[in-house]
């Protein structure tokens, strides 16, 4: 009597509900994976952007302030390059700035002592070339940098370029 009252489901009804449930599950799981993937991609982008802009901004600033390039201590025209600059510090004393890759990190030295690493733990530098441009009136440095993220499974590389005239050579 009771079962007859509640009726139960017919096969057609069950089919419809199962189909709906399956479709919905696919939609929900799909949106979940898309959101996760975009989170990952955004993080990789941020790591590359942060490392690239920090490295390029700092190197550009140092090159701009420099008075000359120490050619014998630098590795120019090939990767992984080393750049040593003769410069003056904020107090006006003569000193040196050096950019070198050690143990996968791009380290900066001032006057021979380590200032710190410009590349964080999230990226690796796959290409770094310094080229010295000599003009009639001065010198300039062209920097070519390629960085790769090292935290995610999907590896991305991005290139950054800049050329800076050494204002101290004028």
């Amino acid at each position, binding site marked *: 009597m009771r079962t007859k009252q509640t009726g139960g489901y017919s096969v057609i009804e069950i089919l419809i509900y199962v189909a709906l449930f399956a479709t919905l599950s696919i939609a929900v799981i799909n*949106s979940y994976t898309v959101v996760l993937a*975009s989170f990952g991609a955004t993080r990789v*982008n941020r790591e590359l952007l942060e490392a690239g802009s920090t490295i390029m901004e700092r190197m550009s600033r140092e090159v701009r302030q420099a008075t000359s390039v120490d050619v014998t201590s630098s590795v120019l*025209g090939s990767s992984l390059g080393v750049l040593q600059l003769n410069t003056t510090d904020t107090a006006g004393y003569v000193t040196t700035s050096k950019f070198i890759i050690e143990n996968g990190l791009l380290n900066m030295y001032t006057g021979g002592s380590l200032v710190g690493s410009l590349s964080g733990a999230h990226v690796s530098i796959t290409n770094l070339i310094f*080229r010295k441009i000599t003009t009639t009136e001065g010198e300039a440095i*062209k920097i070519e940098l390629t960085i790769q993220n090292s935290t995610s499974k999907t590896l991305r590389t991005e290139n950054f*370029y800049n050329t800076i005239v050494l204002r101290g050579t004028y």
Partner: protein
Amino acid sequence: MHFILHTNRGFTIIEVLIACAIISVTSFALISTAQKGIQLSNQALRQVQAGLLIEEGVEAVKTIRDNGWSTISGFALNTIYYPSFNTSTNTWSLGTTNPGILDSVFTRTVVFSEVNRDSNDDIVSSGTVDARTKKVTVEVSWPSSGGSTSKAITFYIADIFT
């Protein structure tokens, strides 16, 4: 008992459809937000790269000026030039032929235009042409979702060494 069972019969097809619609709309909104997020973060990265390329373009024009003003004054006005770097001579030069897209993303152009000065030597739109100053516009453009994005910088370059 019979009465209670009768009113709690479960969902009708309309109710299920409405629930489906709500869930679909929600997940669609999530996906589109995520995709917009990726798009914006890609754009931020491109903006930084383009900014550096523009700076490089400006400095490249300066290295050309440092090799002699005659090169700068020899460039045709209001004509699109493309900077290119020769890795064997380590020099920047400007050419009218497009050397190709940088990094398969960016196109960089340099355009020179005339500078006019008035009797006080101030830069004005119409006046005496100053042959020892040029107005330079460096532009970097790249394809983005919904067309093309570009960034440009305009500066003056002067013959300061002769």
